[in-house]
C-alpha cells in the first residue's frame, strides 16, 4: 500500500566519519535531510562539547548580522531573499566572512554617529536662526522708535541709583508643551519685572533623535535687573531651553542671521553627503547579508550536529548514531562516499540493532499532507502501527458533509478551495504572511473534498440554500389524495392543515430515487420525518465507523505477531459491539423494510425494544418485529456480557501462562523466540528483521518488564473503556444528526426571513429590484459568515472529534514520535 498505510522501516545506523571529512559529510547530510542524529553526548553540558568554540563564533556573527539587519530595517529597506544553492562554508571561509562583517558593522556605526551629530548641529542652527529671524512685537518696536529713550529708566525704583535699569534680552527656543508652564513660572518668579513674548515657529523642525516633526516656540524676554536676569537664566536652564545670544542692534542680528543661514546650508550639504554614503553602505549590506545569513546558519547547524557525535581517539574519527529510513540507506552511503573521498579515508555506515522504539516516518505529498496533519495533531503513531490517514482522506470530509449537507454552501466551499488549489503555485500566494490565510491555504485540499462531499450530501438531503429541488418527480401524489378523500376547494378553505395518508392507494408511489423527497420540504411536519431519518442514519454510520476501527486493529495484531490478541481481544470486541449495536442497526433496517403503512398504527417502537432488551423485560403494547425476537434478544445480551470477562482476563492470563512457560524453559536453555511473547501488549517490536547482534540476553530484560499487576490493570482499563465507550460513542455519533439539523434550520431561517421576504415584496418591478440588492447583500454576508464560516468550523470540529475519539480509540495509540531529520531547510518553507 505504500508508506501511508504504516510507518516506513527506520533503522539505527552508526556512522564513522574521519575527522578531516566530518564537516563536509555532515554538511552534505544536512543538504539531503535524510537522517536524524541521536545525541551521544547527552550527559555533557553545552559548554564542554568539542565544537563549542566554533558554535560560539557563529553565534557572535549572527549577533552582528542582527545588528546589520536592524539598521537596514530602520532605514526602511528590505532584505532580498537569497537565491541559489548556498552550501555551508568551509571553516577557513568563516574568517573572511567575519572580517567583512565586522568592517561593515563598524562603518555603519561610524556613519550613523556622524549623521546624528550633524543633524543635532543643524537643529541648533535652525533654532538659532528662527529665534533671530522672528520678530517679537513691542519690545523690538520700542527699541526701534525710542532709540535715545532706550536708556531711560522705565521704572523709578525706590532702591537707589545703584540698580542697573538697562533692558536686557534673553532669547531662545522652547518645546511647545513647556511654553505655557515657562511663561507662568517666569511671571510668578519675576513679578512683572520682565516682558516675555512667545511665538510659534513657522516651520516644523525634525527632532534629530526621533525624527518626528515638532513645532518649537521662540521667546524673547526683556528684563531689567541683574537678579532678575539670573533668575530667568536659571528658569530657562531648568526647562532645557536653548538660549542664544541676542544682540540689540538689528544690523548685527541680520548679519548673524545671514551667517547662520550660510552655515546651515553648508551643514545640509555635508549631511547630504553623509546620507549618500550611508545608503551606499546599506546597499552593500543588502547585497551581502542574506547569503551570509543562510551560510552561517547552516554552519552553526553542522557544528551543533557534530557536537552530538562521540569521538573515538583510537580511530581518529567521529562516531555518530542516526535514525535512517531503510529506503534511504543507499543514498546515505553514496553521499558519505562522495563527501569523504577527498580526505582519502572514506566514511563507513552500518546498521546496529536497537531496543528503543524508532521514530515514525510517513512520506506524504501535498495532498495527503493535510490529512496526515490532522491525524498527527492527535498523536504521531507508534512505529509501524496502522495509520488512520488514508481512510481519513475520505471519512473526514464525508462526516463533515453529513453535518453540513447543502448543495449551495458545499458548492461555495468547493469553489473557494478550487481557487486556492489552482493558484497554489503563484509566488504571491506562497509568501503571504497572514496567519488565518495560511491556515486556510494549508487545508485547501481538505476544503476541496469537504465541499465536494457537501454537494453530494446536499443532493441526498435535497437542500440547496435550504430549498428542495424536484429533479425526479416526487413520490407523493397530492392529486390522488385530494381526489380520493374529496378535498374540494371549499373543504380546503376550511382546513388549514391536512395530512397525506400513505394507506390511500395512489398517494405514495414509491421512494424518491435519489435522496429525500422534495414534498417534505413543503410539509409542516417535515422535522418529524427528518429527525427519525437522521437519528437512524447517525447510528448506522457510527456503528459502521467503529466496527471499521476495530477491524483495523486486526492489522496491528497481525503485523506485530500478537496472534493471541486476535482471539482474545478483537473477537470479543466485535461480538460485543455487533451483538448489541449491530443488532440495533439490524432492527432499524428490518423495520424500514418490513413495517408498512398498513401496520403503521401498531408499528413497533425500536427504542422500547432496545430498552427492554437490556432490562430483560417486555412491553405488552409493543408488538415484536420478527418472530423469535424474545429469544434472540436475551441471547445476544448474555453473549455480549459473556465477552466482558474474556476481554478482561483473556490476554493477561495468556501472557501469564507464556511467561511461566518461558521461565521454566529458560533454566535448560535460553530461548530467543519467547522474547516476543513476553512484551507487554502494547509494546511494539522494533525492526526484529534486522537482528545482527543481540545486546545481552533479551530474555532477562523482557522478564523484568513483565509485571503481572500492571498487565491486569492495563487490560481492565481497556475493557472498561471499550465497553462503556461502545455505548457512549454510539450516542456521540448522534451529533451528526444534531448538527445537520442546526445547519438546515439556520439556512431555512436565513432563506425565509431574508431572501424570501425580499423576493415577495409587492410593488413596482423597479422598486422591488432595487430593494432586492441590499436584501441579497445581507443574505450573502450572513450566509458566508454564519453558515459557511461558523457552521463550517463547527462541523469541522465535531468531525475531527469523532475521528480522534470515537474512531481512533478502537485501534490507534498515537504515542510515537516523528523522524525529524537533520536538514537545513527552514520550517514552513
Amino acid at each position, binding site marked *: *500500500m*505504500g508508506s*501511508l*498505510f504504516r510507518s516506513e522501516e527506520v533503522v539505527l545506523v552508526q556512522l564513522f566519519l574521519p575527522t578531516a571529512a566530518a564537516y563536509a559529510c555532515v554538511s552534505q547530510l544536512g543538504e539531503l535531510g535524510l537522517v536524524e542524529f541521536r545525541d551521544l553526548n547527552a550527559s555533557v553540558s553545552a559548554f564542554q562539547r568539542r565544537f563549542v568554540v566554533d558554535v560560539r563564533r557563529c553565534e557572535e556573527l549572527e549577533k552582528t548580522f542582527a545588528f546589520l539587519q536592524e539598521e537596514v530595517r530602520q532605514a526602511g529597506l528590505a532584505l532580498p531573499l537569497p537565491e541559489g544553492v548556498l552550501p555551508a562554508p568551509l571553516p577557513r571561509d568563516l574568517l573572511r566572512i567575519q572580517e567583512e562583517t565586522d568592517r561593515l558593522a563598524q562603518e555603519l556605526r561610524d556613519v550613523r554617529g556622524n549623521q546624528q551629530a550633524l543633524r543635532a548641529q543643524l537643529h541648533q542652527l535652525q533654532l538659532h536662526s528662527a529665534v533671530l529671524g522672528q520678530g517679537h512685537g513691542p519690545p523690538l518696536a520700542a527699541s526701534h522708535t525710542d532709540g535715545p529713550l532706550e536708556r531711560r529708566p522705565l521704572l523709578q525704583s525706590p532702591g537707589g541709583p545703584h540698580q542697573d535699569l538697562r533692558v536686557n534680552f534673553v532669547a531662545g527656543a522652547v518645546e511647545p508643551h513647556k511654553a505655557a508652564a515657562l511663561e507662568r513660572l517666569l511671571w510668578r518668579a519675576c513679578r512683572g519685572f520682565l516682558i516675555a513674548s512667545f511665538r510659534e515657529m513657522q516651520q516644523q523642525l525634525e527632532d534629530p533623535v526621533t525624527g518626528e516633526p515638532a513645532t518649537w516656540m521662540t521667546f524673547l524676554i526683556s528684563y531689567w535687573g541683574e537678579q532678575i536676569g539670573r533668575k530667568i537664566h536659571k528658569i530657562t536652564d531648568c526647562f532645557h531651553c536653548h538660549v542664544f545670544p541676542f544682540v540689540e542692534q538689528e544690523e548685527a542680528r541680520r548679519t548673524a542671521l545671514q551667517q547662520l543661514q550660510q552655515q546651515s546650508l553648508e551643514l545640509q550639504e555635508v549631511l547630504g553627503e553623509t546620507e549618500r554614503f550611508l545608503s551606499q553602505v546599506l546597499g552593500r549590506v543588502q547585497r551581502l547579508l542574506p547569503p551570509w545569513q543562510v551560510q552561517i546558519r547552516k554552519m552553526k547547524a553542522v557544528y551543533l550536529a557534530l557536537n552530538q557525535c562521540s569521538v573515538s581517539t583510537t580511530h581518529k574519527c567521529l562516531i555518530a548514531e542516526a535514525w535512517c529510513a531503510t529506503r534511504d540507506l543507499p543514498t546515505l552511503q553514496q553521499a558519505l562516499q562522495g563527501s569523504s573521498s577527498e580526505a582519502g579515508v572514506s566514511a563507513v555506515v552500518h546498521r546496529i540493532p536497537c531496543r528503543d522504539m524508532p521514530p515514525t516516518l510517513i512520506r506524504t505529498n501535498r495532498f495527503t499532507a493535510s490529512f496526515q496533519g490532522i491525524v498527527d495533531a492527535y498523536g504521531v503513531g507508534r512505529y509501524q502501527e496502522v495509520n488512520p490517514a*488514508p*481512510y481519513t*482522506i*475520505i471519512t473526514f470530509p*464525508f462526516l463533515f458533509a453529513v453535518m453540513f449537507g447543502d448543495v449551495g454552501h458545499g458548492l461555495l466551499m468547493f469553489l473557494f478551495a478550487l481557487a486556492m488549489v489552482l493558484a497554489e503555485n503563484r509566488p504571491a500566494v506562497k509568501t503571504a504572511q497572514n496567519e488565518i490565510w495560511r491556515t486556510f491555504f494549508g487545508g485547501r485540499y481538505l476544503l476541496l473534498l469537504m465541499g465536494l462531499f457537501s454537494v*453530494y*450530501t446536499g443532493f*441526498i438531503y435535497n437542500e440547496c440554500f435550504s430549498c428542495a429541488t424536484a429533479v425526479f*418527480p*416526487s*413520490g*407523493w*401524489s*397530492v*392529486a390522488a*389524495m*385530494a381526489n380520493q378523500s374529496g378535498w374540494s*376547494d371549499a373543504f*380546503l378553505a376550511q*382546513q*388549514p*392543515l*391536512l*395530512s*397525506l*395518508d*400513505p394507506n390511500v392507494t395512489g*398517494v*405514495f*408511489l*414509491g*421512494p*424518491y*430515487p435519489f*435522496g429525500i423527497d422534495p*414534498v*417534505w420540504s*413543503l*410539509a*409542516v*411536519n*417535515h422535522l*418529524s*420525518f427528518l429527525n*427519525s*431519518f437522521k437519528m437512524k*442514519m447517525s447510528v*448506522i*454510520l457510527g456503528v*459502521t465507523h467503529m466496527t471499521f476501527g476495530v477491524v483495523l486493529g486486526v492489522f496491528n495484531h497481525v503485523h506485530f505477531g500478537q496472534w493471541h490478541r486476535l482471539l482474545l481481544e478483537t473477537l470479543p470486541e466485535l461480538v460485543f459491539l455487533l451483538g448489541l449495536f449491530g443488532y440495533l442497526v439490524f432492527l432499524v*433496517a428490518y423495520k*424500514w*423494510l418490513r*413495517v408498512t*403503512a398498513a401496520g*403503521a398504527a401498531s408499528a413497533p417502537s425500536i427504542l422500547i425494544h432496545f430498552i427492554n432488551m437490556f432490562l430483560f423485560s417486555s412491553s405488552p403494547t409493543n408488538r415484536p418485529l420478527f418472530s423469535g425476537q424474545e429469544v434472540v434478544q436475551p441471547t445476544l445480551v448474555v453473549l455480549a456480557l459473556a465477552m466482558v470477562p474474556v476481554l478482561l482476563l483473556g490476554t493477561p492470563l495468556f501472557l501469564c501462562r507464556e511467561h511461566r512457560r518461558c521461565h521454566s524453559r529458560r533454566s535448560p536453555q535460553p530461548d530467543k523466540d519467547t522474547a516476543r511473547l513476553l512484551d507487554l501488549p502494547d509494546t511494539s517490536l522494533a525492526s526484529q528483521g534486522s537482528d545482527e547482534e543481540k545486546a545481552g540476553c533479551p530474555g532477562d530484560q523482557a522478564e523484568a518488564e513483565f509485571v503481572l499487576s500492571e498487565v491486569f490493570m492495563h487490560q481492565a482499563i481497556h475493557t472498561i473503556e471499550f465497553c462503556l465507550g461502545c455505548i457512549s460513542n454510539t450516542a456521540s455519533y448522534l451529533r451528526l444528526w444534531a448538527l445537520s439539523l442546526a445547519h438546515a434550520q439556520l439556512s431555512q431561517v436565513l432563506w425565509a426571513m431574508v431572501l424570501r421576504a425580499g423576493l415577495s415584496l409587492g410593488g413596482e418591478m423597479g422598486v422591488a429590484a432595487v430593494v432586492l440588492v441590499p436584501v441579497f447583500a445581507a443574505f450573502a454576508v450572513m450566509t458566508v459568515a454564519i453558515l459557511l464560516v461558523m457552521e463550517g468550523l463547527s462541523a469541522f470540529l465535531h468531525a475531527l472529534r469523532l475521528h480522534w475519539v470515537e474512531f481512533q480509540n478502537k485501534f490507534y495509540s498515537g504515542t510515537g514520535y516523528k523522524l525529524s531529520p537533520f536538514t537545513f531547510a527552514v520550517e514552513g518553507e
Partner: protein
Amino acid sequence: MAYTGLTAPLVMMSMFCGFVSFLVPWFISKGPNQGVSITILVTCSVCCYLFWLIAILAQLNPLFGPQLKNETIWYLKHHWP
C-alpha cells in the same frame, strides 16, 4: 410516472458504485500513490453508497405522510402530476 419502487435506483446505484470500487482500481497506474488512490476510491464509494441506501430505505415504507398547508395542497393538486 409509474415507479418501480426500489429496484431501478438500487440497480443503478449499485452498478455505479460497483464500477468505481471494483473496476476502476484495475486501471490505476502503478506508482507510489496506487495504494492510496485505491483506498480513496473504495472508501468513497462505500460511504456514498451507504448514505444513499439509508436515505432510500428510510422512505421505502413510510408510516405517515407529509402534513401540508391548504394553499400548498391547492397548488400541488393542480401543478404536480
